[in-house]
């Protein structure tokens, strides 16, 4: 157990035609670890995150979760089945929430557990209530997404992902689309998750949040991991020139 | 498929297509006249004119065109209007499509930005001048495509005069289906001729639309 990492990305590379967006990236994440990926836009950080659950499949390289290879080469039909299975173990939260507008908050949360895990309606409803309580939105259970603020939408999106009892959570700039005054409520939910020892990989622009919550920080630029280490080192004492430049711009805000 | 039969009957269909074409052109012209009149009444300052136009649109769009054709052709003589089938069909269809065109034309005029009116009026132009010189030229461009949709519908709509025995494409197809028992072949000949007319009309609309954008 201890010699196989929880999340293991090996020699990940991706290119669109001649454009290389990821170049030979290696990353391991231990169970319960919280990793932040920072870097300028176009650095490949979102692409890396989206490769973990096969939304943007890699051109080459391997992604493993708990000893199971996610991006296995399989015949189309088997591949689809396999990917749908492993995605149930990987929660993802998007910048633009991607809640289903035609479903109530309750149905947004219960859809996948009922459909994919065969959960009964009663159990799924109970699960939805628990998850909503967890993100502090119990009173919104029968509301449609259009009636929620951005921060509330994102909290529901987190509850929806958690309802699948994922092994790892991916956050793709979860607070970037929010008005500044709504960022904190989402950060609080994420901090709470951290305290519950959820394994998380977080792509973010918020250096303060990364510094206070994460165990490790990766700085990416132009498709490579330039530097990584504990937040104290990366933020206070970076070695690489590129990291320093980036942080100078982003910490002075 | 019975090619021999098709070759024997197609001259009748060509003649019928000419009738369909005549119906389409006349209906279109009458429709445009009714539509222009209807739209100007709907935008009039005088409330009764607006009401009449709104009633016209509502009644003619709210009831089947077939009933309107029957009413004029069969019911007309009772109130002293004696028309042959072609005339009755053309008038009924034209007035019917005019109700749709009223809404199309009105919609285009209304969609011209309010700022255009305000700008013209501040320059000292009268309401009429604003309408003629500023609003209508812009609206005219915008209404070409939606009017094209109306025209497409009216060409297919000319089939509705078949039940009052105007010898156009659908009537001819129906007659030949009855005498030859070859519905598919007859459908195909008539269908192709309809599509040629519709295609030609579509090209005309496209040509107008392009020209209007350059001007």
């Amino acid at each position, binding site marked *: 157990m201890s010699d196989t990492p929880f999340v293991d990305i090996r020699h990940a590379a991706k290119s669109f035609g001649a454009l290389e967006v990821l170049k030979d990236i290696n990353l391991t994440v231990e169970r319960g670890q919280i990793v932040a990926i920072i870097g300028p836009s176009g650095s490949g950080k979102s692409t890396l995150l989206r490769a973990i659950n096969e*939304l943007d499949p890699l051109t080459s390289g391997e992604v493993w979760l708990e000893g199971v290879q996610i991006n296995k080469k399989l015949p189309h039909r088997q591949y689809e089945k396999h990917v749908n299975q492993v995605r149930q173990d990987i929660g993802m939260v998007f910048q633009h929430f991607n809640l289903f507008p*035609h479903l109530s908050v309750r149905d947004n949360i219960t859809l996948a557990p009922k459909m994919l895990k065969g959960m009964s309606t009663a159990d799924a409803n109970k699960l939805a209530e628990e998850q909503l309580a967890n993100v502090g939105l119990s009173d919104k259970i029968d509301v449609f997404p259009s009636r929620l603020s951005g921060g509330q939408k994102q909290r529901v999106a987190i509850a929806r*992902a958690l309802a699948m009892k994922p092994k790892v959570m991916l956050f793709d700039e979860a607070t970037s689309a929010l008005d500044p005054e709504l960022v904190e409520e989402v950060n609080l939910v994420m901090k709470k998750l951290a305290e519950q020892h959820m394994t998380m990989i977080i792509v973010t622009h918020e250096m303060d949040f990364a510094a206070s919550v994460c165990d490790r920080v990766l700085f990416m630029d132009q498709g490579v991991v330039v530097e990584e280490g504990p937040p104290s080192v990366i933020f206070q004492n970076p070695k690489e020139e590129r990291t320093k430049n980036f942080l100078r711009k982003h910490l002075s805000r | 498929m019975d090619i021999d039969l098709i070759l024997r009957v197609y001259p009748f269909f060509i003649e019928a297509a000419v009738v369909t074409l005549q119906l389409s052109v006349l209906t279109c012209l009458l429709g445009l006249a009714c539509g222009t009149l209807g739209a100007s009444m709907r935008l009039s300052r005088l409330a009764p004119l607006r009401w009449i136009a709104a009633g016209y649109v509502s009644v003619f769009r709210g009831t089947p065109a*077939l009933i309107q054709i*029957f*009413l004029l052709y069969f*019911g007309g003589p009772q109130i002293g209007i004696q028309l042959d089938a072609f005339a009755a069909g053309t008038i009924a269809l034209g007035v019917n499509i005019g109700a749709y065109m009223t809404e199309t034309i009105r919609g285009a005029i209304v969609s011209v930005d309010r700022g255009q009116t305000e700008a013209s009026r501040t320059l000292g132009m009268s309401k009429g001048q604003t309408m003629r010189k500023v609003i209508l030229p812009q609206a005219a461009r915008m209404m070409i495509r939606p009017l094209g949709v109306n025209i497409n519908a009216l060409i297919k709509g000319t089939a509705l005069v078949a039940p009052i025995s105007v010898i156009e494409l659908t009537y001819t197809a129906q007659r030949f289906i009855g005498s030859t028992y070859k519905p598919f072949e007859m459908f195909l000949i008539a*269908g192709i001729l309809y599509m040629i007319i519709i295609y030609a009309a579509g090209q005309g609309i496209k040509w107008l639309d392009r020209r209007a954008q350059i001007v």
Partner: protein
Amino acid sequence: MGLDFTVIPEYFDVLLLGMAWTVAITIGAGLLSFFGGIVFGVIALYGHWTIRLPFRLFAWLFMGTPLLLQLFLIYFGLIQIGIDLPAFVAGVIGLGLHFAVYNSELIQASILAVDKGQYEGARTLGLSSGQTLRRIVIPQAVQAVVPPMGNNMIALLKDSALVSVIGVAELTLASQQAISRTYRPFEFYIAAAACYYVINLCLEAVLRRLERRIAAQR
């Protein structure tokens, strides 16, 4: 011969029965056009090319020719290949298929307009592409398409008059029956028009309520 509308009450039951048939055929063909439109739309977008190509040809033929011509084809064509359907059924099929083709165009555009994030959100949860289409994409596409489909439904109601020519005893044919006995076409076509107008108003009211209910959710 002057006008005499007093003959109409005598044929009230005939007109009422005709109205009932008109409503029935509108509902039947409406349902067929709705579900058929969705199925056709999905086929046109995702079907194998061996299905997609014939379908495109079929759609092209149906959009380019008059409904009346299509009704003749279906009614007499079915008889020719040995299927003698009741006129009502043939009418429902003809009207329904005709409008299903128009609805499928709407659905296609609407499916393509569903945000990419919706696919990603669903796929991330582990839904298969088929499940995503059925549970996430199509419901949203259908909701978005209710107002224009409503317009098609109103057109369908009025075009239901055309099935009188293949012998469906709906409102138009019912008024013709009354006319053949009274020789009063003007009065009865006015009465029929009034009946259609009333059904139309009801249908518009129903559609508006439906739109409002959907809008309230979004």
